[in-house]
């Protein structure tokens, strides 16, 4: 049948074409290397993932233009770990396997969420792929308890991050609530997920250490749609509420219903899952979910520096390229990429891609190496934690962005000196 012959010919042609384009990336010396990216990029997570990805894109494009990667051309292998609009650990693990299997990938940036990282690190650890997260704050990813994420190579570290871990972020929130806001009686609510519960635990411990009282501590599973009973139970007994979790796992809805229950003038404090810095109206942003009317008196922490050494310059080039203001983690993702690029440049004489991958990992984990990044000069300790431990504090301005509501910066603090 002539159709069959036609189909066979087309099929063969496609295979040949595929083989040709596939091989152009491989090869020794100065070819192309890729930086893998795994972030939640669709649905409700767009507010989190897209500005972060743009930070990576910006760094890669600049490095290519300046030929700053030791003579290699950089490309990005982009993977989305959001499923049905929410970050998904299984999807993250699948994406990690894809990235690891791509021989041209010599380092990766991501993920955004700590529970996704727990699924990804075993995969990248087995392959020895250097992995930088701009936003993971889960303490057990690098500190005590991290061995279980490195089953194949327990003594070889490959995961590092530029964000400040929750054992700093939670207590930072507690100090802010106790000292800056002057509140002594807290209600702590978490979303029962690993990140939310973790940061709520550290908040509670610090708040009590400072002398405050945690009047009630609850966990609201993801299926919760009615937070009214939660707030009814503590009405009149608390002067601050801390929500451990993100805007899409209940943080936005809880605030909305808290205000509906008549507790709007009680401040609501949350970690970086709440302070997404998205303005009202943006899809999946906290202010959109809670409603701008309910977003007054809302405060949040971000696990990273705000006043980077030259914020205006970074914002300007970000805006020039993407026509928007940078997001909370854009600069952090940019810094992750800068670190990887410097490590790639150090591997300029590596014989093949597998060797580049190994060299990148070794370079990052040489603790004496310093990296000049947009965040300042940083280095990484033997666990992969950054030498910078900044927490930035923000609050919502309901009148901002023309009445839609946006976040304004309050202050930042480097806990590296006060730990």
């Amino acid at each position, binding site marked *: 049948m002539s159709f069959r012959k036609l189909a066979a010919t087309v099929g063969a042609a496609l295979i040949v074409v595929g083989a040709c384009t596939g091989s152009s990336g491989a090869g020794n010396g100065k070819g192309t290397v890729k930086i893998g990216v795994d972030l939640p990029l669709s649905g409700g997570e767009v507010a989190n993932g897209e500005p972060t990805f743009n930070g990576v894109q910006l760094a890669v494009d600049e490095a290519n233009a300046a030929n700053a990667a030791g003579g290699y051309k950089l490309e990005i292998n982009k993977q989305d770990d959001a499923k049905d609009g929410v970050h998904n650990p299984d999807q993250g693990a699948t994406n990690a396997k894809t990235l690891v299997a791509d021989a041209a990938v010599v380092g990766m940036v991501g993920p955004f969420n700590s529970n996704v990282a727990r699924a990804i690190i075993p995969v990248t650890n087995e392959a020895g792929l250097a992995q930088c997260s701009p936003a993971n704050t889960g303490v057990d990813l690098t500190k005590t308890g991290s061995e279980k994420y490195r089953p194949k190579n327990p003594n070889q570290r490959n995961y590092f991050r530029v964000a400040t871990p929750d054992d700093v972020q939670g207590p930072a929130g507690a100090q802010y609530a106790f000292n800056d806001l002057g509140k002594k009686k807290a209600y702590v609510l978490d979303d029962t997920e690993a990140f939310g519960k973790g940061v709520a635990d550290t908040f509670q411990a610090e708040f009590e250490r400072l002398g405050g009282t945690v009047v009630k501590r609850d966990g609201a599973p993801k299926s919760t*749609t009615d937070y009214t009973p939660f707030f009814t139970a503590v009405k009149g007994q608390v002067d601050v509420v801390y929500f451990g979790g993100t805007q899409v796992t209940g943080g936005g809805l809880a605030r909305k219903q808290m205000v509906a229950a008549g507790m709007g003038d009680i401040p609501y404090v949350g970690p970086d899952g709440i302070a997404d810095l998205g303005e009202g109206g943006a899809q999946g942003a906290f202010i959109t979910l809670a409603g701008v009317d309910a977003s007054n008196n809302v405060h949040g922490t971000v696990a990273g520096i705000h006043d980077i050494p030259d914020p205006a310059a970074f914002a300007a080039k970000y805006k020039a390229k993407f026509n928007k203001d940078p997001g909370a983690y854009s600069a952090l993702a940019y810094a992750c990429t800068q670190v990887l690029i410097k490590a790639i440049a150090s591997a300029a004489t590596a014989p093949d891609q597998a060797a580049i991958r190994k060299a990148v990992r070794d370079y990052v984990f040489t603790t004496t190496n310093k990296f000049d990044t947009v965040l300042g000069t940083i280095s990484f300790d033997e666990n992969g934690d950054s030498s910078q431990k900044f927490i930035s504090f923000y609050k919502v301005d309901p009148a901002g962005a023309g009445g839609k509501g946006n976040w304004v910066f309050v202050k930042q603090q480097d806990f590296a000196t006060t730990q």
Partner: protein
Amino acid sequence: MIDSHLVATLTQQFFNALTLGAIYALVALGYTMVYGIIELINFAHGDVFMVGAFVALAFLSTIGFTRSISDPLQLILVLVGTFGVTMIVLGTIGVGIERFAYRPLRNAPRLAPLITAIGVSFILQNVVQAWQGPSPVPTPQLLSPQVRFGLFGADIAVLSIVILGITLALMIALQLFVGRTRLGRAMRSTAQDREAAQLMGVDINTTIAITFFLGSALAGAAGIVYGLYFGSIQFNLGFFSGLKAFTAAVLGGIGNTVGAALGGFIIGFIEVGAVQVGLSRWSEALVFAVLIIVLVFRPAGLLGQQLGERA
């Protein structure tokens, strides 16, 4: 000496539980009616409830009422209009689903319509997700939850009372319809014995279609109430709420409309009670534990009786 603050809190929680239970009850009624008449667990019912919430949102946006309304007469008119339009639209959708997804399989092995129902559930979710996006969407709270009155020291939202009133009215209307009208009698007889009913001149197709219309209309009403009370809806709302409503229907005795309402309120009280005593992390487990215990001792549910059978 009773702590007056505790009394106030418990009063408030009581109304919270009633309101939450009322929403579950409304959705549970649809599950139980469909099961009673064609012995199908309509897994798509929870998503019909979700679609109802979005249809109400679309209607309110179209007629331009997206903020709270202070004039009581205008509020009543808008509510009546919203309920009327949404319930008719959802009833029609329900009939459509029955006609095209379930009727062709009426004589097929029981598994086939069950799988189809799951398929319809996914289709509804995907359509809404494509239409409105995957993130939560704010809904107009026509009667602001901030309008409150005092009772035993607690601040009760007028909205809660309105919702309870609407729900009870709908449930009573349903009971009267099923118990007193000719069509209702046709429904009961079809549920009891389909072939005998057919022999007695009952038009089975129409009767089943009416059952789906009513059940879906009630789910639509529940969707409106949900949007009014919680102020936020999402495409996957049907999954969790539908699961709890289905549990309510089974708890009360699947096929029994009073049982479904009772089950809905029981689950509402269990959930709110769990939060009050600090066991909120276990609320889902508690609900299902209660279900299992009830079924162990009363396998047909608390009021286990078929829609058609009388004692």
